[in-house]
């Protein structure tokens, strides 16, 4: 269980030491991608706890979800529809759901 946490810390360190900065205009896309990734990770965790974890599904879900979210927001931006908020809301709800299930699992144990 320690490995994912450690990996996240390593990633944060890498991100801080390599000054890759996003242009401000793309901040929204990155935010949505981040939300999608978080959702995938928590979903993966939940699947693992439910003994249903599938590696290819997890990996593909992580990247495809993020990319699709960015694409949707991008299209929304072009069409003048603020899909950014919709995406944030949807992913946020799912993250909280997953977290609730994970919490319940730990409590039952």
């Amino acid at each position, binding site marked *: 269980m320690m490995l994912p946490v450690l990996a996240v810390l*390593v990633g944060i360190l890498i991100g801080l030491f390599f000054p890759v900065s*996003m242009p401000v205009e793309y901040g929204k896309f990155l935010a949505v991608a981040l939300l999608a990734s978080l959702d995938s990770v928590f979903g993966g965790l939940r699947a*693992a706890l439910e003994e249903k*974890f599938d590696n290819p599904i997890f990996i593909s879900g992580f990247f495809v979800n993020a990319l699709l979210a960015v694409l949707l927001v991008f299209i929304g931006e072009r069409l003048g529809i603020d899909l950014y908020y919709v995406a944030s809301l949807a992913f946020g709800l799912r993250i909280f759901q997953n977290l609730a299930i994970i919490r319940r699992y730990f409590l039952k144990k």
Partner: protein
Amino acid sequence: MRALKQGRVALAFVCIVLGIMLAVQFRTTQDIRSTIPFQRAEDLSQRLKLAEKERDSALRQLQEFENSTRAESVVREVDMFRMAAGYVAVEGPGLVVTIDDSKRAMKPGENPNLYLIHDDDMLKVINELWAAGAEALSINEQRLVVGSEIRCVGPTIMVNDTRYSPPYEIRAIGDPKTLEASLKMRGGVIETLQFWGIQATVKTQQNVKVAAYKGTHKFQFAKPLQEDTPK
């Protein structure tokens, strides 16, 4: 839990990517906070707060004035007008200018007038001082008020119907630095006077006393215009 162990490497990789994204997002948010529109909005809101504070204090002041009795405000106004008319001796930071005739030996055939102080020299100095924001001026104890004249009477100068001979002492109350700079600027009054050897010394002082006007203001011909008076 077995499946989780299988995908350890993949999971670690995904988590590293997630960490990088977190860090970049954090930095991007930081960047947005330092961009011009954001700063400008913050700046404007700060100014709005300041303006509101000022308005509140002004309103409070207005209320105070309204509450204070009418007699009080009249007394205050009279004091102000007395000071403006020069009936009150005043003191404050300022400077003392002493001007004396030229001691330079005249060359034969030259006009002696060039080496004497004239009323227009004094007027230039006085004018410069008024322009520099002097609040009260006097020449040799004669307070300069709205009707004060400065004119040549033979070798002397007449101020407020009183004759004075050199040296003349001009006392001015105002910001000492501004007053001094206005006189001493390049090509200014003092430089022109010194060209002719006229001795002018400028001393800034923290406490200059300016005498009160001893005459009276008379209005024989002028009457206030009714329609121009406020209210």
